[in-house]
């Protein structure tokens, strides 16, 4: 069996650890190291980055040897939509208010599901908006505009 590295589970995991560890070490070069007795701000992260690279190499090599593939499919579409719905909420809340942000977020998140039924989501949006207004605005008194932005 010719192992496919592009979908090799441990190969990717190892690579991820090496990249993140490397990033940590490189960025930490700007921070003074200090000595073991008086550690500077760079000491702890540099050591951690180094250890992470070592673990990454181990995991990567094991992946090459075993050739285990990632199980199932990558759910890029739901992932993108869920991430988008979160970003949209943050972007919209202080621009257009809590109710529009709630509706948009619910629609974006619901689109990530396997079934998207417009009427159901609309109903959900109405119910959740009412719930959020009641709980967060009146109950917990969070100071967000319901409709309309700060600006």
């Amino acid at each position: 069996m010719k192992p496919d590295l592009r979908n090799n589970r441990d190969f990717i995991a190892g690579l991820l650890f090496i990249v993140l560890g490397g990033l940590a070490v490189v960025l930490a070069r700007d921070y003074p190291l200090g000595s073991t007795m008086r550690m500077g701000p760079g000491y702890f992260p540099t050591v951690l980055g180094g250890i992470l690279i070592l673990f990454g190499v181990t995991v990567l090599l094991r992946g090459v040897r075993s050739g285990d593939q990632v199980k199932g499919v990558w759910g890029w579409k739901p992932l993108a939509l869920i991430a988008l719905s979160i970003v949209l909420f943050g972007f919209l809340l202080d621009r257009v208010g809590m109710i529009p942000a709630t509706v948009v977020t619910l629609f974006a998140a619901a689109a990530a599901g396997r079934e998207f039924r417009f009427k159901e989501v609309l109903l959900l949006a109405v119910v959740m908006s009412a719930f959020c207004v009641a709980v967060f605005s009146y109950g917990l008194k969070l100071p967000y505009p319901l409709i309309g932005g700060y600006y």
Partner: protein
Amino acid sequence: MELFHNLVFGFGVAFSLQNLAYCFVGVALGTLIGVLPGVGPLVTIAMLFPITFHLPAVPAIIMLAGIFYGAQYGGSTTSILVNLPGETASAVTCIDGYQMARQGRAGPALATAALASFFAGCVGTLLIALAGPTLGEWALKFGAAEYTSLMLMALVASAVMTQGDAVKGLALVVLGLLVGVVGVDVNSGMARYSFGFPELVDGIGFTVVAVGLFAVAEIVANLESREAREVYAGKVTGLMPTARDIRDAAWPTVRGTALGACFGVLPGTGPALSSFATYMLEKKLARDPSRFGRGAIEGVAAPEAANNAAAQTAFIPMLTLGIPASPIMALMLAALTLQGIAAGPQVMLDKPDLFWGLVASMWIGNLLLVVLNLPLVGLWVKLLAVPYRWLFPSIILFCCIGNYSVSNNPFDLYLCAIIGVLGYVLVKLECEPAPLLLGYVLGPLLEENLRRALLIARGDPTVFFTRPISLAFMIAAVLIFVVMVVPARATRRRT
């Protein structure tokens, strides 16, 4: 006698109207999310966590605790009636619980699960009351070196035990420690890994990490596969177990409680592993092991006792040492920290109302849960009809509002989305993100204590091995690693 005095004091705190109300809200919510598959206590606590800022410390922690152990009760209902684990900790309960339901004995199965959980909950609560003060007094003697070693041990244990792969677990701990480094270094005042964003100077918020790693990743992973849920159609009749059931379930409950209580204290194990281990133990001890898998009542009583006992005793290291044994305890610790309470041995002395109030509330909570879960079981089953496609957008929405309300800054949500992507990738690569969260929570504490210990020892790293308590933790860390990794290696070579 002092214990008695303290417990009376605790009940006085817990029986205040406010605390009682929050205890009820917590356990009811815990049962709800326990019943619903795909919604766990971790995500729920992460979601509600920002709301607790608006509450005083005692009711806040009572409510969050209630969600956690309440979920252990609720999870068994789904396992028995739907053959789907409502919680991971109830996964093994499916095996015999669902068989009992198919044989028309759903009622006794549910009752056994609830009563075994209640017994375990009472014992677990008592253990906290007994062990807490002793352990706390002992921990007062800890210096920086002891704390460093203790944290190392906890991190190693969580890395090795949460999943089969020790190297990945350790890598995740290190990654978590690095995430914890982000922000101002307390000693030098230097901002580390802030990438020029003023928002990152304060460090990455706890809810941001928890929601991203667990809520987002879990929801996306759930959306990959088709939703299949089949609710047991038959009516639940005759709740009470027979005398024979009680006799059969009694010892397994006690054994499950004992094993669960031990597992709860250990870092990285928690309710899920304890229920699984207990099931295996009961199967070995049984005179007729073939009954297991065909509706053996021991297979319901023992794991349910174990997961609830573990859920209670998990509070011991968090409350007395300030060291969380699981991601959920890490959340509790963070909730306390944000309330301005430094968890650790001083809590019992400085805030006796918190410690004893929580202990007493747990006992009340367990009692409430039996009432909530037995007569009202029909209500929870109806909730299973709520489809996941309504649930997950609502969960995302609450996560967003919760996250935003921490610092009223959209940046937190952008960061949360990024961490969510990372969390999902990690899940797909079979890197269980729990050790990452523990590393992130303990990171700043570990660095602080490590620096202090080495400063006191004038840069001599042998300090961790010459002080006896510290040495013991180090040896324990190595032992845990060896015990867990060597057998795994051996089996891998054989296959």
